[in-house]
């Protein structure tokens, strides 16, 4: 199967999983399951940066609309991740002369590099998301707990989906 078609199908499946989880899996008001960061880090590395930003913004906005969220929350967070995912990739994976189209899959990079990378990406993503999702309307402690819980829950889910969908040969 051509790489692009395969990529589009995987993205569609991940978006579907996200919508189903948002609408039908009840983990309480503190937890927001979000697979957009995973979609952003698997955008082609050799693509023009401004295009990557626009695609990430579009993906975030699509999720905002489909999962009944506040318009702009995922879009803004995804755009921020799109800005930093390339500069973060090279030092974390220690690949300065890397020339492949996509980031290294787990089976090649090793689990810990991937966990660290996802952790930082999710931390950046939820920093934007929680800061703009009513930080002023709740206490700092509640926001901090929500931030940490969301990073950990989403790390586990992102790794599971990463292993099952993005790491198939």
């Amino acid at each position, binding site marked *: 199967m051509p790489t692009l078609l395969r990529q589009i199908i995987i993205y569609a499946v991940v978006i579907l999983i996200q919508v189903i989880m948002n609408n039908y899996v009840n983990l309480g008001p503190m937890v927001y399951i979000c697979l957009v960061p995973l979609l952003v880090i698997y955008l082609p590395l050799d693509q023009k940066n401004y295009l990557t930003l626009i695609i990430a913004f579009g993906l975030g906005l699509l999720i905002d609309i489909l999962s*009944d969220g506040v318009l702009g929350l995922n879009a803004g967070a995804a755009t921020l991740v799109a800005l930093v995912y390339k500069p973060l990739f090279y030092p974390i994976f220690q690949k300065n002369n890397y020339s492949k189209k996509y980031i290294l899959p787990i089976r090649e990079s090793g689990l810990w590099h991937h966990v660290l990378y996802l952790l930082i990406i999710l931390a950046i993503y939820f920093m934007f998301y929680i800061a703009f999702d009513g930080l002023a309307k709740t206490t700092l402690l509640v926001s901090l707990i929500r931030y940490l819980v969301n990073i950990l829950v989403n790390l586990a889910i992102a790794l599971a989906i990463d292993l099952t969908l993005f790491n198939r040969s």
Partner: protein
Amino acid sequence: MDYNSRSYNLLLTIGVFVVLEVISIVMITRNSVLQRYLIMNGIRSTQVFFWERSEGIRDFFNLRAYNQALQEENAALRGKLAQIQYLQETKAVTDSTAGLYRWIPASIIKNNPNKQHNYLILNRGAKDGVQTEMGVVTHNAIVGVVGAVSEHYSYVISFLNKSQKASAMIAGTTDFGLLTWDGVDGRQATLSHVPLSSTAAVGDTVCTSGYSTIYPPDIPVGMITAVDDVSGMYKDMNVDLFQDIRSLKYVYIVQRHHQSEIDELSRNAANIK
């Protein structure tokens, strides 16, 4: 200008990034769920088709809870009926707010109480006389406020939304404050800005005050579980809500009679100032 130069690409990237972030922040601040509802109005009927079926599955598994809630409501209504009959027989009825409101029964076809910005879709719309700004309640819960109405459906901004506030008072007193959801637990709320002179204690019941025209008075909504003094100015109270909005199926949309007259009076009063 060299359109392939590093600095040009960097400037373009920063420019696009700033524009996209500004667009995001404008969308967020213009919040939002209501905005999306209006944008999505065109495909609403298709969504409703799927919601009704998926909620049907959820309803099946919640039948026991619905039955229990209806039994409790039935019991409460029977109690009120007996009281009214007794008062009528003794000719003691001097004032009642019961006739001040029109009650429109409705069922929930979409309820997403899993987030920070929750809403519900009800199966009653403009055709049934529903208008925006009407309150939605049950016999023991504040459910929300109608935010938008289509011909057959209405969109309700849930009380489980940090931007929502309701005027509530401690039963049996005249002490009132603002009831807001705490954003953490679907059954916890905070009654804030209660006067320091209030003698309310843990275990007291909190009910709607009727001071706003959205919700009728005297609907018991929760019980006080903790009382805190805030800066020696007023009291904040933690409230355990009686009803879990997540398990609701049937609600009432309430409209206060003479609402337009009250609104006009308020406007005139504002002009006098």
